[in-house]
C-alpha cells in the first residue's frame, strides 16, 4: 500500500481531475501537479505498487509513437498498462496518469507503468521511478530555449542512467552516437536497436547535424551511411569507438505510402521475422524497432509484439487521418528540424505534391524560439508543394521560411485565424483529395479543437 501522504496526494489529485472533467477539460497535467505538490515522491510511491514494474520511453523524436506501440504490445501479452497516453510527458503527466488509474484507497488499476518522459525530465524521473527498462529513441536539437545544448542534455541523461541499479535494462538506438554512448558508464544489460539495410540512407552527411564529433574523444566521426542528421552507420577513426552491435536490427526496410515492411534480425537466438508497421515513414520503422527491443527487455513474446504492431494506430498528430468536408486531413506534428525532415521525407517518398496547411506557434510546448524552422529542410519540400495555407501565432515567420525556400508567392497565403485557415485549405483541395497538416504542438491542438467542434475529430485526451 502507498503511504498516507501518497494516499492524500492521490485523493487531492483525483478531486482535481473530477473537477476538471466535469467542466469538459482534459485533465492530463493539473491533477498530477496537485498530487506532486503534496507528495514530491508521489510517482515513486504509486509506481512501486505495479507488478510488472515501469518502462520509460524518452528521446527527442518518436517517444509518443514508441510508447504507444509498447503499450499495445504489452496489452496483447495480457498486461494492463498505466500509460500517460496523451503525450503529457513531464512528472505531472506521469502523476496524472497514475492517479487516474489508482483507486481512492490506493489500489492500482493496472500492473505495468509505461511512461513517455520528456528528455529534460528524464534524469529526475528515472531516479523516482526506478524503471525496469529505459528506452532512448534519439537525441536531436529541439526547443533550445528549454533544453539548451544537446551535449549538456546528453551528459545529464548519461549521469542519471549511470546512477540506476543494474536491474534496469537500457534500450538504446545504436545508430545515434549520442544515444549509444549513454551506456558507456554502465555495467548492466543494454539492448541496442538499429538499421542495417545498406539501401537505407545515403553517404552524404546532411546539413543539420548535431553530433558530427565523437562523443568520447571529440574527433570528427566517419559515416559509412547517413540515415538522418547524425543517425547512421558511424565510427570514430581516431579513438576506434564504433556503432555497438545491434541486438534488434532491421536488415531490410520496404517503405510504402501506408506503412513499412521490416525484415527483422537479432544477434540473440536466430530470430528472422517479417514485421508490418502500418504507418508510413522510415522514422516510424525506427520507432517499431525501439518498441520491439523494449519488448525483448521486458521478456514479452515476439509473436505477440509483431501482432500488436500490425494493428497499431497512430497517436495525436502522428500521421492521423481525419475526414473533413469530403477531404482527408493527414495530421503531422512537427517540432524540430530532424522531426520535420523525417516527416517531409515520408511525405515525399511517395511522390506526392502535397496541399499543405502549415501552422507555427511559439507557446512553451512548441518551443518559444522559432529559429529551428531555418534548420529544417524546406528547400527539399518547397518544389513539391502544390499550395500552402499558413497559419499560427508565428505564421508570418513560417511564410517567410517558405518564401526563402523558393515557394512561389501564388502558391501560398497566410490565414491568421484557425478555423478560417482550415476552411480555406479544405476548400482549395479537390473533393476526395488530401490536405497535409504540418503543425507544432499547440497549433495542432488548436486546429484539432476546431475540427472536433465541427464534428470531425475526437478530443485528444479521450483516445
Amino acid at each position, binding site marked *: 500500500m502507498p503511504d498516507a501522504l501518497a494516499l492524500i496526494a492521490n485523493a487531492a489529485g483525483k478531486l482535481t481531475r473530477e473537477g476538471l472533467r466535469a467542466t469538459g477539460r482534459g485533465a492530463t497535467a493539473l491533477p498530477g501537479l496537485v498530487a506532486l505538490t503534496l507528495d514530491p515522491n508521489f510517482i515513486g510511491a504509486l509506481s512501486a505498487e505495479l507488478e510488472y514494474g515501469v518502462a520509460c520511453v524518452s528521446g527527442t523524436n518518436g517517444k509518443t509513437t514508441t510508447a504507444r506501440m509498447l503499450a499495445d504490445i504489452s496489452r496483447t501479452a495480457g498486461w494492463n498498462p498505466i500509460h500517460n497516453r496523451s503525450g503529457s510527458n513531464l512528472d505531472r503527466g506521469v502523476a496524472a496518469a497514475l492517479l487516474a488509474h489508482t483507486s481512492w484507497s490506493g489500489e492500482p488499476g493496472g500492473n505495468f507503468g509505461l511512461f513517455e518522459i520528456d528528455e529534460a525530465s528524464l534524469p529526475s524521473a528515472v531516479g523516482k521511478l526506478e524503471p525496469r527498462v529505459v528506452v532512448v529513441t534519439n537525441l536531436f536539437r529541439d526547443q533550445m530555449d528549454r533544453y539548451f545544448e544537446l551535449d549538456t542534455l546528453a551528459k545529464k541523461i548519461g549521469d542519471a542512467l549511470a546512477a540506476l541499479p543494474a536491474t534496469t535494462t537500457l534500450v538504446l538506438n545504436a545508430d545515434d552516437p549520442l544515444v549509444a554512448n549513454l551506456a558507456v558508464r554502465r555495467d548492466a544489460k543494454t539492448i541496442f536497436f538499429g538499421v542495417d539495410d545498406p539501401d537505407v540512407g545515403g553517404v552524404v552527411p546532411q546539413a*543539420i547535424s*548535431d553530433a558530427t*564529433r565523437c562523443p568520447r574523444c571529440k574527433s570528427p566521426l566517419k559515416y559509412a551511411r547517413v540515415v538522418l542528421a547524425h543517425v547512421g552507420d558511424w565510427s570514430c577513426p581516431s579513438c576506434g569507438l564504433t556503432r555497438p552491435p545491434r541486438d534488434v536490427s532491421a536488415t531490410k526496410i520496404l517503405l510504402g505510402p501506408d506503412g513499412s515492411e521490416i525484415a527483422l534480425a537479432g544477434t540473440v537466438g536466430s530470430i528472422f521475422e517479417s514485421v508490418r508497421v502500418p504507418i508510413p515513414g522510415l522514422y516510424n520503422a525506427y520507432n517499431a524497432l525501439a518498441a520491439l527491443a523494449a519488448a525483448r527487455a521486458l521478456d514479452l513474446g515476439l509473436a505477440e509484439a509483431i501482432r500488436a504492431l500490425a494493428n497499431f494506430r497512430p497517436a495525436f498528430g502522428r500521421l492521423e487521418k481525419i475526414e473533413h468536408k469530403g477531404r482527408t486531413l493527414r495530421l503531422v506534428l512537427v517540432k524540430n528540424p530532424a522531426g520535420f525532415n523525417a516527416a517531409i521525407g515520408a511525405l515525399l517518398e511517395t511522390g506526392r505534391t502535397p496541399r499543405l496547411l502549415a501552422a507555427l506557434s511559439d507557446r512553451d510546448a512548441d518551443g*518559444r524560439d522559432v529559429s529551428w524552422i531555418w*534548420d529544417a529542410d524546406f528547400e527539399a519540400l518547397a518544389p513539391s508543394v502544390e499550395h500552402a495555407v499558413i497559419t499560427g501565432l*508565428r505564421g508570418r515567420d513560417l511564410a517567410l521560411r517558405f518564401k526563402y525556400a523558393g515557394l512561389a508567392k501564388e502558391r501560398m497565403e497566410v490565414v491568421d485565424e484557425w478555423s478560417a485557415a482550415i476552411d480555406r485549405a479544405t476548400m482549395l483541395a479537390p473533393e476526395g483529395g488530401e490536405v497535409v497538416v504540418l503543425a507544432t504542438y499547440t497549433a495542432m491542438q488548436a486546429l484539432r479543437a476546431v475540427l472536433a467542434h465541427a464534428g470531425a475529430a475526437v478530443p485528444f485526451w479521450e483516445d
Partner: protein
Amino acid sequence: MDLRIAHLYPDLMNIYGDRGNVIALAQRAKWRGIEVEVRPYSVGEWADPEWPDVWFFGGGQDQGQDIVGADLAGKNGAALRKSVEGGGAIFSVCGGYQLLGHEYVPEVDPSIPGVGILDVTTRAGKRRFVGNLLVDSPDGQLVGFENHSGRTYLGPGAKALGTVIAGNGNNGEDKTEGAVQGKVIGCYLHGSCLPKNPWLADRLLAWALDRRHKDTKLDPLDDADEAAARVQASEVARTRT
C-alpha cells in the same frame, strides 16, 4: 555581378537556425540578379582571406566553441583579420560574436582568446538570457530570439548595434545589443536574424558587394512579408517576453 559568401564552421557553429542568415543573404542577392557562391569552411580548412566578400559566423554548442576557438588561434584567425582589412564584411551571432571579440572569460577556467576584430569582451554569467529580443537603432528596429549566458561589454572601438527595448541584449545591464565596427557586426539575435530584418541584410550585402564592385546600388525588393513577420515577432517580444 557576383557575391561570395563564406559560411564559417557550419558543422560546429550552427545551432538555433543561424544558417537562415546565409539563406537570406544568398536569396536577396539572387532576387536582384546577382550570382552567389557559398563556401563552407570548417576546422583545419584554410580560409582564403582573398575570396569572401562576406563571412557568416553563427552560434554553437560549448564543445564546438572550444574546437573553433583553438582553430581561430592559428592562421584562420589571421585570415579573418586580413580579410576585414581588405574590405570583407562579417556578420556574426552569439558564439561567433563572442569569438570575434578580445576574449571570453569563463567563471573558473582560463580565458579563451578571441580573434580581436571587435572591441568587445565577454564574461560568463550565471543566469542564461533566454527570450525574445527587440532592439531599436537609428536605422530601424531589429527583432530576434536570444539564448546566451555570456555577458558582452563594448570597448571604445565598437558601437552598439542598437538599444534594447525588450529582452537583455549584450549583458542585461547597459541596454546595448550587438556591436558594429567597420564592416563587422556581432549580435545575439537568433531567429534567424536577417530574414526578418531585411534592412540589416541589405546593409551587409551592400558592404560585401562594395569590396569588388564599387558604387553598387541595390534594387529595392518587395519586403511586405518580411515586414509582416517582423511586426508579429515584435508584438510577441513586447507582450510575452
